[in-house]
């Protein structure tokens, strides 16, 4: 997979920044406008999928190695669970919105509001984006039509 023509490469190297920024916007403003962690995470993943389709797999592998990607996936899931446990510690119940109830009420319809909801959005966005990119990467590795030449996507971390 050596990538596409120079026109596609040039355009996608410009557009990928905008797509990534749009994904970050959707994730961060998820508690005020339509969107949220799920949609924003898929947009973040699709910016890297665009890179992979235009430049080939090896280019993306230098930019975002598989080991880093699976670490990001785990960090997202861990952060979401930690937010829930912090609610248990500070406010007495699992998934309690302790920041909004006690420490940082904020002002409605502003970016700093809603306590733990933006933090949970960021964690969910990280998790969804990283895991969808991971599965797309795995699918693109085994691409031979027939035969058994399926490479090991997880082999790099294991050994």
């Amino acid at each position, binding site marked *: 997979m050596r990538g596409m023509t120079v026109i596609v490469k040039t355009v996608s190297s410009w557009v990928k920044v905008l797509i990534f920024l749009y994904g970050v916007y959707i994730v961060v403003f998820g508690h005020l406008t*339509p969107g949220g962690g799920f949609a924003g995470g898929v947009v973040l993943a699709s910016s890297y999928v665009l890179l992979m389709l235009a430049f080939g797999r090896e280019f993306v592998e230098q930019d975002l190695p598989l080991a880093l990607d699976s670490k990001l996936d785990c960090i997202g899931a861990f952060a979401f669970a930690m937010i829930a446990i912090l609610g248990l510690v500070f406010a007495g119940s699992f998934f309690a919105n302790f920041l909004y109830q006690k420490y940082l009420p904020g002002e409605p319809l502003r970016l700093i509001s809603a306590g733990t909801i933006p933090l949970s959005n960021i964690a969910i966005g990280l998790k969804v984006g990283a895991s969808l990119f991971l599965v797309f990467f795995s699918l693109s590795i085994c691409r031979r039509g027939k035969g058994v030449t399926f*490479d090991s996507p997880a*082999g790099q971390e294991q050994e």
Partner: protein
Amino acid sequence: MAVFYILLLFVIIAAIIAVETKNLLSAVICVGAIGFGGSLMFLFLRAPDIAITQIVVEVMGLIILIRATISRDLTFISGDREFFGTVVSVVIVFVIFLAGIHVFDTLPDFGTAVFTQVPDTASQTYIEEGLERTGAANLVAAVILDFRAYDTLGEATVLFTAIIGAMVILRGKSRKLLEDPD
């Protein structure tokens, strides 16, 4: 609302074509038509969150589906099962359709939300008190990350399991081939 019905018919026609066409690539493209039509319908049903998510998920899913079908030499498929089995299946599906369609008589008419027919529903509470109890202006975000965050935790677990399952299935026996460039 006429546009909504037109979109619904469009989606049904696209589904029939996706099911019945012999070419796998055409079927995948018709799935894309269903997804984008569905995204527009969600916009008409006042669900912008779902519309955004559906449209980006549809793009990713189409890439995955096309990736699975385009490089295979067998994009044209042969006929279906034997005639008798097909007829029996169609008759059974049609009978299920006729029997199940009476369930919708018990629902209120389209355009009357179900939660307004019952007093003291959870949805009414979310609409009335969601902003002051969570501070989130987007009530859908308030529901998925505050009121019903257990649901999201379960969703993250299911997604994690599905991704791990996909990677385990795709993993080959030989790891030496990884060094082999293309």
